[in-house]
């Protein structure tokens, strides 16, 4: 069972927390718990939480973690939850230097959770919420049976990625009162104070045009939904003929998906930031002489690049360091961008010393996409040996495709957009006037996997209880896949 800190670990915690605070990190109260390897694997399988609803997929994660730690292939270093207070776990068997490293790393994450804008709307009492979800689902299992509930969760999981990741930050649907006002303007023309101005402010042909527009828009409103809906799960919650228990479960799955979404949006930054801080705290403050070799070994293990893999820890920490260096030396702005004298660039140092301040700003206002887009420079890509790869059909192998900066950056951004998932909207919930649900895949150069799409449509059809379809492109041609729960039909369409 989880143990609280030993007096020695408590001393370390106080020490590290002091360093973190002195560096200006701003974090929630942190609660460390000490776990055995098995327990840590379990908590990791639960996505960091002590309790989740019963489902086989935690067992699947656990099997992988347990096997890989049993064979000594990998081990979990740190595990931290975005919550207030912030919970983090320490592995009982770790050496003291590792515990220090993990603590320093955790304070980095904790600061990031608290300050980065992406996490602004996440539930900070998620540990309790997860426990409530577990209770709710257990109750439904008691009433409806394990098989039935689990099968339904499986279906929900298959649609879990169909959320609108920006939804917490913006209003998609316009405020009805404002819409009404706009409508008036369109029908009557702009408000006029002096009557004689009317023909000039609202000329007749302008009015006619506006009325015509209004007419077509009203026509469009008969479509349902009025505009494409990215949050498919929310739409299903509102409009699919679900039973109460199904509704409740889908709601749980959706809520948890939204809770985890910001972590997916900031993986590189979050790990980079935490690594930057464990490195800074350890090497300038916390490390004792006899611990240096072990620390260096473990730090480099976490930062290791594997052939063909992008390590978010590595890219993140290097980018933060690069930004700090550039803002320290004033390597930004118009003068820097327009300078093409290589020698001047190499020796460029305005001694500004804004680096620390800048990276604190960056950790607040950016997510992975804007972070990469703004700060990934050509020099950085070359230094970090970044490349793109793709599949060579003829040789049946993966190959390094290019080291060209533009291509690398574009590919990276593309991979990060919508978590590297296809962008899919509901465009019609009454397709062909038969109550069928129609989705559209916004094709940006990469086709959907047809086999996965077929099975996913089948699951969607079982929720909607009517046939469902998706419009996409395959090999550059429009394709409608329609599934009625039994069979799938493919039809060519013009886009």
């Amino acid at each position, binding site marked *: 069972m989880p143990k609280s800190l030993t007096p020695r670990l408590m001393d370390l915690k106080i020490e590290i927390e002091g360093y973190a605070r002195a560096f200006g990190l701003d974090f929630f109260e942190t609660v460390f718990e000490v776990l055995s390897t098995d327990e840590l694997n379990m908590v990791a399988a639960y996505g960091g939480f002590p309790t989740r609803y019963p489902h086989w997929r935690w067992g699947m994660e656990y099997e992988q973690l347990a096997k890989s730690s049993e064979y000594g292939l990998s081990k979990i270093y740190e595990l931290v939850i975005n919550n207030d207070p912030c919970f983090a776990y320490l592995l009982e068997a770790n050496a003291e230097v590792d515990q220090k490293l993990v603590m320093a790393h955790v304070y980095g994450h904790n600061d990031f959770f608290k300050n980065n804008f992406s996490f602004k709307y996440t539930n900070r009492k998620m540990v309790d919420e997860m426990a409530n979800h577990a209770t709710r689902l257990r109750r439904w299992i008691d009433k409806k049976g394990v098989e039935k509930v689990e099968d339904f969760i499986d279906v929900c999981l298959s649609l879990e990625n169909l959320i609108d990741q920006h939804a917490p930050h913006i209003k998609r649907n316009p405020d009805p009162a404002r819409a009404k006002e706009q409508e008036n303007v369109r029908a009557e023309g702009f408000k006029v104070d002096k009557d004689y101005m009317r023909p000039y402010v609202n000329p007749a042909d302008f009015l006619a045009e506006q009325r015509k527009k209004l007419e077509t828009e009203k026509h469009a409103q008969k479509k349902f939904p009025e505009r494409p809906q990215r949050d498919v799960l929310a739409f299903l919650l509102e409009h699919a003929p679900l039973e109460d228990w199904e509704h409740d479960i889908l709601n749980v799955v959706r809520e948890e998906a939204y809770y985890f979404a910001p972590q997916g949006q900031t993986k590189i930054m979050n790990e980079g930031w935490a690594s930057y801080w464990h490195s800074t705290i350890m090497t300038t403050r916390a490390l004792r002489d006899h611990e240096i070799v072990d620390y260096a070994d473990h730090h480099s293990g976490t930062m*290791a690049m594997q052939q063909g893999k992008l390590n978010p820890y590595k890219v993140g920490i290097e980018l933060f360091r690069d930004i700090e260096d550039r803002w320290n030396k004033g390597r930004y702005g118009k003068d820097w961008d327009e300078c093409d004298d290589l020698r001047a660039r190499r020796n460029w140092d305005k001694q500004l010393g804004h680096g620390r301040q800048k990276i604190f700003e960056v950790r607040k206002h950016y997510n992975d996409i804007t972070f990469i887009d703004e700060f990934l420079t050509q020099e950085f890509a070359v230094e970090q040996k970044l490349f793109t790869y793709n599949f060579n059909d003829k040789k049946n192998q993966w190959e390094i495709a290019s080291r060209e900066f533009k291509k690398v950056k574009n590919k990276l951004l593309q991979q990060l957009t919508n978590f590297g998932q296809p962008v899919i909207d509901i465009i019609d919930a009454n397709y062909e006037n038969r109550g069928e649900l129609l989705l559209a895949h916004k094709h940006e150069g990469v086709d959907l996997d047809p086999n996965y799409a077929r099975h996913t449509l089948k699951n969607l059809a079982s929720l909607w209880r009517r046939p469902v379809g998706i419009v996409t492109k395959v090999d550059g041609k429009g394709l409608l896949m329609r599934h009625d729960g039994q069979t799938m039909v493919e039809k060519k369409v013009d886009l």
Partner: protein
Amino acid sequence: MSLRIDQDHSRFKQIVRGKIKQNLKQYVQQGEMIGKKGKEFISIPVPFIDVPRFKFGSREQGGVGQGDGEEGQSLGQGQEQPGDGQGKAGENEGQHVLEVDVAIDELAQILGEELQLPNIEHRGSEKIVTTKIKYTGVHSIGPESLKHFKRTYREALKRQISMGTYNPDNPVIIPIREDRRYRTYKLQNLPQTNAVILYMMDVSGSMGDEQKEIVRIESFWLDTWLRHQYKGLESRYIIHDAVAREVDRDTFFHTRESGGTMISSAYKLCRDIIKADYPISSWNVYPFHFSDGDNWSADDTRGCIDLLKGDILANVNQFAYGQVESPYGSGQFIKDLREHLGGDERVALSEIADKDGIYGSIKDFLGKGR
């Protein structure tokens, strides 16, 4: 200690084994982790259930990686994407990849537990004796080659201190003849069990890469288990199409021949090898034969059965035949064997439909404890 997650874990395992929730069976896939056995890499199977989602076809997508290499350099063959750069949403654990030896004995134990395999009853074990040298002590006389340097030095030190000729400021130790110490040994008779696996594989045109992969994985596990049961296991490899020949391990798994199949040719060679090198009185013999079940003629099949009945079965612990499903094979051979030899407990037959079938098949082969 029991954990809260045990219930989820056992449910997952049951799904993978196809005991519950048949509807998910179609999404079960075999992943692997790479471990190291000495210098060889070994694969540890990790099954997972891939819930369908809207996602990109992975081969079209490609990605961004980091590291050395020229444009066009290979990053690895086949299906798996070298790493998709993004973790599953919400995971925050840092993983540190270590390279560690996996004890092969441990693997075998896990395999045994997992499949509930019985331990094999050795035979002829009392009769077979090997001599082993065991160092048992230290003596003041002996051959120079067995000189025990540390003990000799210690004796010299002791002597010099007691005689008062040892000077800590100038610590020179000179052993004289009486200081010398030598290791002594005894010869011990150890009962030893000898075993040999004879792998036979059909390499005719109909056995494709996928079928061979199945044979390769299965023989790895058979090998692991038998090695766990017998110290000093030997392996011999026979490939055959219309004729059979003995080859080394590497050739065995990588040859692709074409042409017809005469299984009897392999059985004849197998019989000859057993007769020449592995007398039943002192060896545990395990022939394993893998084929897609397409034999040249009914006559040849009859020949095989005669060979088995007449010569081979009497001289082996167990004869195992595994039939790998192939789009080209008729799969007749196993039916013939079952008809004529199905009742014989020295014969183990198994059909392997695909990679998932390996699990059950190992149990068919090793479950009898012979």
